[in-house]
């Protein structure tokens, strides 16, 4: 991977936060390559599902084929077969799937298990990465707020802007063969079995001072009532813009991800820089804005987040 340092950093934070990730990005920018590389580095299995309008939950759970005796058979899907060892599950174009599929995904993400063949399948090391098709509106089903809220963060992956990197991506043959490229990643760099324990240890050991807690609360108030911290937007009434979504769970995810970021920086305490580094990725996709501004996309929410950060002093 070249030119995607920030995306790699955020995926690393998501892995050690044990959080699921929404990926936003155009086709062909390297989303699948990044996730396959992450899966290989962790040593776990990788599964990928393409969302389609006629997909049903059973398509994810069951596999049907004809047996040697010529009779149809129903068996566990590849996802179920790899339940104990899967570390990365990539759901491409999740918003093409119907709400029934979203419902299954909600349980998979929240409880890390599903029911099939009259028993529960546990996915102890599963992390879901889902891509949304933000270009087309036909035959798509917007993710419900409850599903969106289950994702730890939404990471934007865009094509690199630097000319030398673009030239390398276009002309270097190694970027044309994704399998060969992914195979160059050393496997099992970090054993995926250890991730839950490491994640718990990070959350237990990285401290948040009272000044940091006050700072996060001021940011939260600032998002809900920008006027209270002196923030304003040029093109919208900031105080009526946010209709919901900056939930306590969102703030808990924010602190969870920030602790991982502090740990990656070699600190055992949180600083405001940690919060800011992942604030937009963790909170922006949860925030519900006034319908009159919703069609403008997430740009206005990101702008609001930056404005609030600029207005809230630290410490």
């Amino acid at each position, binding site marked *: 991977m070249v030119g995607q340092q920030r995306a790699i950093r955020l995926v690393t934070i998501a892995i050690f936060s044990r959080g699921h990730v929404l990926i936003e990005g155009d086709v062909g920018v390297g989303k699948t390559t990044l996730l396959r590389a992450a899966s290989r580095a962790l040593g776990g299995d990788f599964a990928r599902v393409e969302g389609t309008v006629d997909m049903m939950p059973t398509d994810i759970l069951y596999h049907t084929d004809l047996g040697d005796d010529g009779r149809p058979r129903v068996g566990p899907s590849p996802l179920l077969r790899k339940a104990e060892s899967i570390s990365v599950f990539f759901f491409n174009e999740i918003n093409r799937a119907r709400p029934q599929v979203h419902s299954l995904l909600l349980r998979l993400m929240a409880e890390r298990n599903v029911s099939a063949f009259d028993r529960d399948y546990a996915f102890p090391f599963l992390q879901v990465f889902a891509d949304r098709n933000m270009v087309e509106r036909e035959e798509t089903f917007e993710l419900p707020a409850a599903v969106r809220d289950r994702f730890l963060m939404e990471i934007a992956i865009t094509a690199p802007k630097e000319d030398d990197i673009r030239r390398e991506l276009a002309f270097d043959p190694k970027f044309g063969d994704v399998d060969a490229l992914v195979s160059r990643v050393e496997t099992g760099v970090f054993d995926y079995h250890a991730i839950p324990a490491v994640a718990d240890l990070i959350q237990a050991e990285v*401290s948040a001072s009272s*000044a940091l807690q006050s700072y996060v609360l001021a940011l939260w108030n600032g998002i809900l009532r920008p006027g209270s911290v002196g923030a304003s937007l040029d093109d919208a009434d900031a105080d009526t813009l946010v209709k919901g979504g900056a939930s306590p769970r969102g703030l808990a995810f924010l602190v969870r991800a920030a602790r991982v970021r502090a740990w990656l920086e070699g600190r*055992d*305490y949180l*600083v405001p820089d940690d919060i800011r580094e992942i604030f937009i990725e963790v909170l922006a996709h949860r925030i519900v804005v006034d319908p009159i501004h919703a069609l403008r996309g997430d740009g206005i929410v990101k702008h609001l987040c930056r404005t609030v*950060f600029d207005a809230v*002093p*630290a*410490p």
Partner: protein
Amino acid sequence: MRGLSLVILLAVGVVPASAGDISVEVHSARPFGYFVGDLIHAEVEIRAPAGAVLSPATLPHPGTLSASLDLRNIYVEQARTNDGAVWRLDLTYQNFYVALDVRDVQIPAFTLTITTPSGVESHEVPVWRIGVAPLREVAPEKRENAEDYMRPDTAPITFSETRPQAAFAAFSTTALLGLVLIARDRAWPPFHMRRRRLFSALARRIRALTRVPENRQTVCAALMDIHRTLDACRGKSLLQEDLPTLLHAHPEFADLESSLNRFFSASRRLFFGRPEDTEAIDVTVGELARLSESLARRERVG
């Protein structure tokens, strides 16, 4: 109208002090040109040493003074000056003399009693004259010289211009200075382009903190003050990871990068560190004062 009348009053008689420092002056609007029924205004100014008392009983009473002259009204005003007491008697007479030719008539004298620390003294307000005339051709007393028919011009009043000029210069300078200070304070042109000297003010505040006994509160206050001033300099909240952005926008501070990093690291440990770290303060108000003065010096140069 009374004020205007007083402006044009002319002195018609001065009685120098006959005893002590008491003086009496009589002023009248004009000494001629009165017709039957006209009111004649006069002001008698009496100056006396401090502690003198004018006996009100000796003042003339309104009423008939002669067959053709009445005193209509008298108004007494007393003022105190640095030198002593001043009384001003506003007297209003009315002339009933039906003149068949132009002639002078007398306004009668009267005596005032003034008690001073040295004793009781009497002072006479002297007789003074006015010219009355019929409504017919003027037939003045025959004079040798034609010019003698003319009243002499009133002597011009001369002032020394030195003091007013000095006062004008002083007040003009003060007003101009005040205007400059207000313009600077309100950032009116030409001061609207000048950047505020944030760090000079910060250095003064931190210097003041060095004069009080140092403890955790003073260190925290100094750190917070520097944070807020850096925020103001950037125009928005500044975190440690924004330092390269700030130094890019303000290259005059570039050589203080290590000091600023040390400041941010100390602030991080103190405000956000683990409880055991926040107990150990590894920065002093003196160091912060030196940092703020370095910032102020570069701000003045930049």
